[in-house]
């Protein structure tokens, strides 16, 4: 087929234009904004005052922001390990030839399809509710009803939120692992079985090494979604920020648009600084995983 330059450019033009206007321009503007003192996001450039690294100093001197960084650190590490281990376990089980594989796969993936707002509300009102919630009812059934556990109390709310969040995320990562496992040729397993390898050996020596690329993808995707953690923080703390549920995005949202319960000072410059910081985190993790989990030995 003859390559027609004009046609290619004409078809690419709308997409490139959309990318430049909707993604690149706001990104560049945000980076520039992070070095200025800006009150409202839509203030004209004439109202901006140069502030150097002042915005970064502001956000790092906020105790709540530091707590929010710790929160996503915990979500990334502890949540990440839990989700990946569970996702891998389910993926291995579902690709080992059990019956009703499609049903289990759909059932585990279902939470991903349901809106996060609906899921979060369900967890708060149906499962964690102090008086009527599922967990406290189970405890009461086993005779522990006197001591009602405050699942949404200040010391437990972060972990409650993390469990609810991870519950919904397992399905998505399980599918990615399944796709990776299904790409491994069965010959390897057959050869290993003939040589006398048991299930554990097959898993450690064949499955895991050949899943390196998929694992790296999963880690990067998990990092991106963790950095963008927002909806669950809003649901578990609907009116204003709490130390146990705030993620940097929640903090940024309140900083840029003001609190919904009282009239607070807005600081879009500091919000932009948070945005820049989050981008740096994602880029750093991306490069780190590229070096640590090398993709060189999966020649599929």
């Amino acid at each position, binding site marked *: 087929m003859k390559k027609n330059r004009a046609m290619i450019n004409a078809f690419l033009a709308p997409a490139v234009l959309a990318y430049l206007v909707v993604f690149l321009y706001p990104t560049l503007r945000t980076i520039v904004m992070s070095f200025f003192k800006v009150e409202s996001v839509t203030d004209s450039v004439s109202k901006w005052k140069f502030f150097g690294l002042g915005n970064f100093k502001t956000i790092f001197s906020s*105790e709540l922001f530091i707590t929010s960084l710790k929160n996503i650190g915990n979500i990334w590490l502890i949540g990440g390990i839990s989700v990946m281990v569970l996702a891998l376990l389910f993926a291995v089980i579902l690709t080992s030839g059990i019956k009703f594989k499609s049903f289990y796969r759909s059932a585990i993936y279902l939470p991903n399809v349901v809106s996060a707002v609906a899921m979060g509300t369900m967890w*708060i009102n149906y499962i964690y509710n102090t008086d009527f919630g599922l967990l406290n009812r189970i405890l009461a059934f086993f005779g522990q009803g006197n001591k009602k556990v*405050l699942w949404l*109390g*200040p010391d437990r709310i972060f972990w409650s939120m993390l469990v609810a969040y991870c519950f919904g995320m397992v399905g998505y990562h399980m599918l990615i692992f399944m796709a990776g496992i299904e790409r491994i040729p069965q010959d390897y397993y057959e050869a290993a079985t003939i040589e006398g390898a048991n299930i554990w050996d097959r898993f450690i020596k064949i499955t895991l090494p050949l899943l390196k690329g998929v694992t790296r993808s999963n880690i990067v995707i998990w990092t991106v979604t963790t950095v963008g953690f927002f909806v669950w923080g809003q649901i578990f703390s609907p009116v*204003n920020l709490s130390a146990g549920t705030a993620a940097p995005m929640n903090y940024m949202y309140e900083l840029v648009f003001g609190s*919904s319960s009282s009239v607070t000072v807005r600081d879009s410059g500091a919000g932009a600084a948070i945005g820049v910081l989050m981008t740096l985190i994602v880029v750093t993790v991306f490069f780190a995983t590229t070096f640590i989990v090398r993709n060189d030995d999966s020649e599929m």
Partner: protein
Amino acid sequence: MKKRASILLIFIMALSVVFTSCGSTNSNSTNSNSSESSSETTTTPAKNIKLVYWTMWNETEPQGQVIAEAVEAYSKQTGIEVELNFNGRDIRKNLQPALDAGTQIDIFDEDIDRVNSTWGNYLLDLEELSTKSYPSTNGKPFTEVVNKALIDIARQVGPNGRLSSIPYQPFAFVVMYNKDIFDQAGITSIPKTWEELLEACEKIKSIGKIPWTVDDAYMAALVGYHLARTIGMEETLKIANDNSWDHPGVLELAKDWEEMYQKGYISPNAAANVWPAGQQEIAQESVAMYLNGTWLPNEIKSSVKPDFRWGTFAYPSVSSDGDPITYNNIGGQCFAINKNTQYPQEAFDLIVTLTTGKYDTKLAQESLGVPMGLDSDWPEQLTEAKTVFENTTNRYIWAVGMENSADVNAKIKKNFALLISGKLDAQGFAEAMKN
């Protein structure tokens, strides 16, 4: 031939992209309420004037419905077209960008502090317009027929101390209580001091009900109020602004609330109440009292029994060093006019329609809210609130400043919840707040 067909296809695609992006910028209003009437009932001839009004209410809320009715009546009477835009609470994010972009917005409404401080630069000065008389004011200046306290507050918070907004839907932040439980417990008079409150709590507990509750959204306000009643408004504001909690009053507050926890006067669920769980405890009648706004009866209208009896009283005084019960957080929503409007008088006429006479009463009745007009009736649920309004001499800002900083608010929420669930004692709370 093939080349021509593909060029035509590209052209159509490009056009469709252009049209879809054009189309989305025009239709912003979800409900255009326009009625260009003929000159049958008009007192002034139809002038082809169009007002654009952005409101914070949703179409389905009672306030939204009454406003829509009032706007339609106004349009019919004056022949002026009014485009009514139900933004919902998103107006907090949408309004300023729209104003900056030069969109025609003549009237908008929101919380009185937000309108005057966040959007102060966009407001028209209303001092002159408000001293005129209008058909519904019986010959008196407008400012003399509406709630004076609110007008004074609006002037106080207005840019340069000028009246630049007209309040409506006033609220007071008070203790809302269940009258039935009070009667059952044998409480005959409203508690005015902390000791009286503790006595009332004991009586309520003896009939098997829980005296008090709170949820995460209002913990900072509770702490702010109690602190102001203990050490006074000035000191409390200082603590809120500097985030320095060394004051001995903090320990006193902690001891008071530790006592509330130990005596079982506060709901055991309170520390884990994610809003609106606290209100629901009131609605279910398991708890008697809750520090909240006078909007509460309206907010949980659908959760309470039909003959729920509401009462209100000002937060009791705690110490002689602190504020008396005449200091309260009073506020409201307010209407404001864009300083660049072409029709200031017409816009103000609409505001008068909404804050006096028939529609003011209707707004108060339908939304179980406080009316603006001095002649309008108060809903039954808020009769006791009238006393609080009339007796308030000094105004607290929202939560006495405790929600002005997200850091302070989050710190209070965490430590206060630990205090009222017994995980921190009074000393521990005071120490934790100092960090």
